[in-house]
């Protein structure tokens, strides 16, 4: 599903964030990406979502090489991915419902069908009662769950999460990890970056550990 081949990522300015990464993630796997702050976890996820491109080596996502991907093909790659961001990237000018609606609007889904899907996604993360709320009125944990609802509403085959529990206390983190685990159970491929190693003990899944841009 995801394959890295001798991938190097050098940022403009010369800093080498990733060095000689080679690994593969199979369909339906749930993988934790761990490592210290600055190890290169976010960079790795950005390469998969083609937010950054590798300097050398190849990144294959569902068989497509990110490096040679045309910019016109980029949106269609991203529609297969669900992205959960540490800073949520929610839009505060619209309701929770409309935030989750956005990916479906972008794909041009039928309006009535979309509304059903949005409610299903909100229900999944336990926010159905807050659909009319502005995200700014939600707690940190609720905002993160809203971000997850937006990531899954399009039924992506791959879910990438960058420190989804980063700013949350352990009660909220477990809640969110359970949600991810339920996606794993229905066959979604998950890659979750976290510097909190405790999740590894509670949930099944392989760990990839980065140290100064190298895979341990």
């Amino acid at each position, binding site marked *: 599903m995801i394959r890295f081949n001798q991938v190097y990522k050098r940022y403009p300015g010369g800093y080498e964030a990733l060095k000689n990464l080679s690994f593969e993630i199979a369909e339906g796997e749930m993988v934790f990406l761990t490592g210290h702050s600055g190890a290169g976890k976010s960079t790795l996820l950005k390469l998969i979502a083609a937010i950054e491109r590798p300097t050398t080596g190849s990144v294959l996502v569902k068989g497509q090489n990110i490096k040679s991907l045309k910019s016109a093909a980029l949106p269609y790659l991203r529609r297969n991915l669900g992205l959960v961001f540490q800073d949520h990237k929610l839009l505060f000018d619209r309701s929770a419902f409309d935030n989750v609606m*956005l990916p479906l609007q972008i794909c041009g889904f039928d309006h009535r069908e979309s509304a059903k899907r949005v409610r299903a996604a909100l229900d999944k993360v336990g926010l159905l009662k807050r659909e009319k709320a502005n995200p700014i009125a939600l707690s940190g944990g609720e905002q993160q769950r809203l971000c997850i609802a937006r990531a899954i509403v399009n039924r992506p085959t791959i879910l990438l999460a960058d420190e989804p529990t980063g700013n949350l206390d352990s009660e909220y983190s477990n809640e969110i990890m359970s949600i991810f685990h339920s996606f794993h159970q229905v066959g979604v491929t998950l890659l979750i970056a976290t510097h909190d190693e405790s999740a590894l003990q509670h949930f099944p899944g392989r760990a990839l550990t980065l140290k100064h841009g190298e895979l341990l």
Partner: protein
Amino acid sequence: MKNVLFQHGQVISIILQRLLQNPFASSLNIIVIGIALSLPIGGYVLLKNVQNLAHQLAGTPQISVFLATGTSPDEIARISKQLKEHSAIDRIEFVPRDLALKQLQVSTGLSDVVAGLTQNPLPDAFIIYPTALTSQQLELLRDDLKSWSKLEHVQLDSAWAHKLEALLKFGRLAVFILAALLSFALVAITFNTIRLQILTQREEIEVAKLIGATNGFIRRPFLYFGIIQGLFGGAAAWLIIAFSLLLLNISLSPLNQLYASSFSLQHLSINDSLTLLGFSTYLGWLGAWLSVSQHLWRIEPK
């Protein structure tokens, strides 16, 4: 297909809502565009009206020839024959002085004045319809006729129409230059409005790109905004001109009564109105398109 239409309809309704949310700012923009457009279009409307009036008054070019008073009927017959044989003359019309006076009475509404005259001050006259039509040929014919005896006064009626035509040409050029300049201003206004919108919606654009929005999807609301603003601006220009013409026509009415005429300024024809709306819509789209292609590609998610 229905779905695509729904999406476009949704974009339009979002933009209309956005315009209504900010009624003051939006209407200010639309009014500025309307005023900018109404200057050249108003000039065009006035030129059209003057041109119509000129055509009504001028008709085909004629030469009026007034005979010296006391010219005998024999001499009139001789002159008439000579005129008819002239190669540059198509046909002629003899206007006896009595008839001329009657016409004056009827056509100008000066019946009271005419009735008060003790004798007819008008001479016998010929109206000449020349075969030649260029102003140079007409002037040659006029000069030729002037040298004939008994023809006291030769008047080329189309001379002023030619001068007017030259003046209209100049006016049209002025309107054209004004239109070009103000079209540029309209494009610039839209360009800047869209630039500001893109800046304030930067976050939304980034998020949309991250979750798989195509460039077309992101561009669409901005282009529609430009189109709608242009269309409304064009409509504002139309209304501004309509209102101005109303005022001008009201001020014309005492003049009309005085001269017993029924001249009034006409607004743009339906075709011209549609062209105006189409053109302003196009300019709005152009400004938005330029702005979007300038600014949108710079916003990439990090």
